[in-house]
């Protein structure tokens, strides 16, 4: 088992024929991911890198039974692409696109609430279940199949954690990049909950950053519901107040969303908090032994 995506997921790529879509779809296919086609309005009926192109997501659902979508559509069209996927019956929608206006995401969140689907992202590296499905832009080779679940708001920092887990002799069940925007489809708590309920995950690594209350919400949930060890890190201990640090969501608004405040809450909820990002892998290994 795993969560969100696996070898049986039927994946389509929205923005399939664009530069980003083409490159990353190719990488996904090379990894062995079950990509069943792609969507580019107006290019339906063609074939692209060996897979069928459809005009609409609905067509992809009815013709090849797509149940998962990854979105590489530019920011001004991405909100529409997410809603189209939800309306077509896609169950897992993973939006990689960075730079979607916040007010658009507020409307998207509200819209997809009426559908039985889960949105991951936007502004995220995607979701990875090693040796089964790479649905994102992460480098496949650093992963190894295993029993550690990873949740993170960042891209390269997630790869760092993955690499440390692999080098510490463990592997990953599923890695979920939830994205660095102020409004994301799947929150830290949602992702931690998925992994906590996954019988094939033994430990969870939760990587957060400054800004917002997602890590605190997740920590309070962990306190009540944890059945396996959780290791946590918050990036941005030295970030100044009121400045956006790369990710649109990484900005300290008040006293509650600093790295220090979040780490304190996580610690009080029984999470193994690491001060140094170099200690993520080793801390997980030790937590599992205890």
């Amino acid at each position, binding site marked *: 088992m795993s969560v969100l995506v696996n070898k049986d997921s039927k994946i389509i790529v929205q923005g399939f024929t664009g530069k980003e879509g083409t490159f990353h779809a190719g990488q996904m296919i090379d990894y062995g991911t079950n990509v069943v086609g792609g969507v580019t309005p107006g290019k339906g009926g063609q074939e692209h890198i060996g897979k069928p192109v459809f005009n609409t997501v609905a067509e992809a659902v009815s013709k090849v039974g797509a149940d998962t979508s990854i979105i590489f559509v530019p920011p001004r069209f991405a909100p529409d692409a997410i809603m189209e996927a939800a309306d077509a019956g896609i169950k897992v929608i993973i939006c990689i696109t960075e730079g979607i206006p916040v007010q658009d995401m507020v409307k998207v969140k509200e819209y997809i609430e009426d559908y039985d689907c889960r949105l991951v992202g936007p502004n995220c590296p995607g979701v990875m279940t090693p040796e089964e499905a790479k649905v994102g832009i992460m480098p496949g080779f650093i992963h190894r199949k295993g029993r550690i679940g990873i949740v993170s708001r960042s891209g*390269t920092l997630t*790869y760092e954690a993955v690499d440390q887990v692999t080098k510490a002799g463990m592997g990953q069940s599923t890695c979920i990049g939830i994205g660095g925007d102020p*409004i994301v489809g799947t929150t830290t708590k949602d992702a931690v909950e998925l992994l906590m309920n996954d019988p094939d995950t033994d430990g969870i690594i939760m990587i957060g950053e400054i800004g917002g209350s997602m890590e605190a919400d997740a920590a309070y949930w962990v306190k009540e519901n944890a059945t396996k060890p959780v290791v946590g890190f918050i990036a941005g201990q030295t970030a100044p107040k009121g400045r956006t640090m790369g990710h649109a969501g990484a900005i300290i608004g*008040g006293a509650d969303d600093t790295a220090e405040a979040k780490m304190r809450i996580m610690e009080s909820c029984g999470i193994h908090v690491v001060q*140094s990002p170099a200690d993520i892998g080793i801390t997980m290994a030790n937590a599992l032994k205890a």
Partner: protein
Amino acid sequence: MNLHEYQGKELLAKYGVAIQEGFIAHNLEEAKAAYKKVEEKSGSPVAIVKAQIHAGGRGKGGGVKLVKNAAELEEVAGGILGMMLKTPQTPGGLEGPGKLVRKILVAEDSYTPEFDQCKEFYMSIMMDRAEKKNVIIYSTEGGMDIEEVAEKTPDLVHKEHIDPTLGLLPFQTRKIAFNLGLSGAAFKDMTKFIAKLYAAFVGADASLFEINPVIKTGDDRIIAVDCKVSLDENALFRHPELAKQRDTDEEDPTEVEAKAVGLNFVNLDGNVGCMVNGAGLAMATMDIIKLSGGSPANFLDVGGTADAERVEKAFRIILRDENVKAILINIFGGIVRCDRVANGVVEAYKNIGDIKVPIIVRLQGTNADIAKKIIDESGLEVHSAVLLKEAAELVEKLVG
């Protein structure tokens, strides 16, 4: 992206929000002309001169002053234009160097003639990330530091969340106006004021509106006297006219330069410069620097294409900071191949020539081993590391 007060007011006025009228001036001549226009419009010789910089607390530093006649205007405007204005929010605070005032707003005094009848309120609109909805925050305690009000008298700060699909509803505007203790004509005007203000917020894709104070005038009109407006950078493609209003004079010149070449840079005051791919890893690298006994001189995300040209630009920007005693390059190569980054580092290093501070290069991921070889064999004064832990130890050795 932040707007100046006068730009924010122009935006509000476009949506029909009543504002304190005023005119912008870049020099004394323009200030005199602006004063004349204000006097004609308001029918009063009393006016307010307000320094236009991107920082709050301007009154505390002497950047906002009342004038009673043309002679006073000349004296006050001459004093504020060109001054280095220090406020609690300018770099370094009241002890810092302050910010150069390049323009002033000459505005009507909305509090006359019946000063005693005026009432000040606080109102702001922003995104509540936890609720995933816009929220209007308001209080009867206007003209004060709202964070202080919220701490001392939380009962006096109210919140109204807005449904994303339906928008602001009429009963909500009435609720706010009642909670602010208004009645009669002022009540009616406040409901209109709130509706228009919210329309402006949504219409401009703003991330923050802070109107402090909103006042009820002696003759029961509701007016925005000050305004702080921040816009969602990601939505600027929909608002080219607002995008043009960016005032780069108000931003850190190094940050502006970095942005122009696609680098995401934030200036800090530490002693270890850093160059990283990815925002999360960049923040984590800053944390590592701190834990190793240094302090980060900057945040720098080079993005997905760390080629020689970008690395060289990033180098040059970091090296300009005289406080920098060491530089840590931390790249996790995924799609980016580490050997290419290593070649970029070597090439950039040679192009710049005389680099006097030690450089730590940590390349991990795709082709990390080849990259380490390139760095080690380059003959440059570069310390290479593969594990993040090793990089941390090198920082400690060099500056800790």
